[in-house]
């Protein structure tokens, strides 16, 4: 099977049908969830400090749902409207932006405490988008430079991606370095054809944490915790059933709050007559 990024521009490839198919596929859900957990681990955020994160190429929210679950507040950007639409349907908590990361960000300096990006970076190397673009190196430079400034010092950005050659890895890391990032490549299960995963771990400043060294890639026996994750996700799916499609109306909010309370979350706002009420702006 040929790589998606060689087939068509991302916002075309992830059209309505593929966006739904991609998101519904339980194997995809599991892989993206696992890689998101691993990216969070590599992000090495200070424990017990709530963080504000950027999800680069958030797609339909498979990675973002894990951020929600872990209690992060986040913003997601993606170039494919159909993927974002599915994310809306799935009622992820993050703010979503339709954005081509190759055009760069406008976020103010130090906006985010960290960034993750799951299965996206290879798109910047390969397919053109149907929007006006320039060469991949130019787009990568614009992307990394504006990302660097929108991250706080110290912090990290962790990208899981699918490079197709060492030259691509070389190109990406050298452009990231020129943009001011430290860090490098971490490979999990380098000797397993199936489990091998490539992570680009970029540091702003010292990257946070005590060591400035790159973390070790995982190796040896693969831990099979897929079952646990799968069950967690099923719970999530069940919780969602029956309310798909409707906007976050009062009914939805009440259900979600009930769910949070059931899960033992504290300080769920009490219900009031204002819950989910539409308000006209005042000028």
């Amino acid at each position: 099977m040929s790589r998606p990024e060689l087939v068509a521009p991302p916002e075309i490839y992830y059209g309505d049908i593929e966006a739904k198919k991609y998101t519904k596929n339980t194997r995809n859900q599991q892989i993206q969830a696992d890689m998101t957990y691993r990216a969070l681990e590599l992000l090495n955020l200070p424990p017990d400090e709530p963080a504000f994160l950027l999800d680069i190429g958030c797609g339909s929210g498979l990675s973002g749902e894990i951020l929600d679950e872990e209690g992060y507040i986040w913003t997601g950007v993606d170039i494919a409207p159909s993927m974002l639409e599915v994310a809306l349907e799935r009622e992820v908590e993050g703010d979503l932006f339709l954005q081509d990361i190759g055009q760069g960000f406008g976020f103010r300096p130090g906006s985010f405490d960290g960034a993750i990006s799951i299965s996206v970076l290879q798109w910047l190397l390969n397919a053109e988008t149907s929007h006006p673009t320039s060469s991949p190196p130019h787009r990568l430079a614009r992307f990394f430079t504006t990302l660097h400034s929108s991250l706080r010092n110290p912090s990290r950005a962790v990208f899981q991606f699918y490079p197709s050659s060492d030259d691509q890895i070389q190109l990406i890391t050298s452009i990231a370095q020129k943009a001011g990032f430290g860090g490098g490549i971490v490979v999990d299960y380098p000797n397993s054809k199936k489990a091998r995963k490539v992570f680009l771990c970029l540091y702003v400043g010292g990257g946070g944490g005590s060591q400035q060294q790159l973390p070790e890639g995982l190796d040896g026996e693969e831990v099979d915790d897929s079952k646990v994750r799968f069950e967690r996700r099923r719970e999530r799916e069940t919780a969602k059933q029956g309310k798909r499609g409707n906007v976050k109306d009062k009914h939805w909010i009440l259900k979600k709050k009930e769910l949070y309370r059931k899960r033992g979350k504290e300080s769920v706002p009490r219900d009031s007559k204002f819950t989910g009420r539409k308000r006209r702006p005042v000028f």
Partner: protein
Amino acid sequence: MVRLITHNLLACHAKGCTTNNFPLEFKDVQVVLRESEFNPEFLRGFMPKIEWPALLGAARELGDTSLPDQLPEMLDDDFLKALHHVLLEIHVEEGIMICPNCQHNYPILNGIPNMLLAEHEIA
């Protein structure tokens, strides 16, 4: 789902637009309120990132007058609750964000701002 937490971080990223490009001005907006979990630790951590006058202006533009003119020195619960509401519970669903410098329009559809630039606007 543009909330003021992200609006407060967002400047125009069009080519050559580097000064006076923040905050983006709202126009023709429709707003929805959605309660969310109050998290005082998050708010305390986020405080240093806030551009206060921009937040104050945007909140008042959207009809919320609960924030004080100046950042208070004491971050008591009442203040944090008002801040929580303004940053995280007011969702702009439709409308336009306009750059005060280059006048670029960023339309918001279904809660999602379109940040795509035309060819001549890409840096």
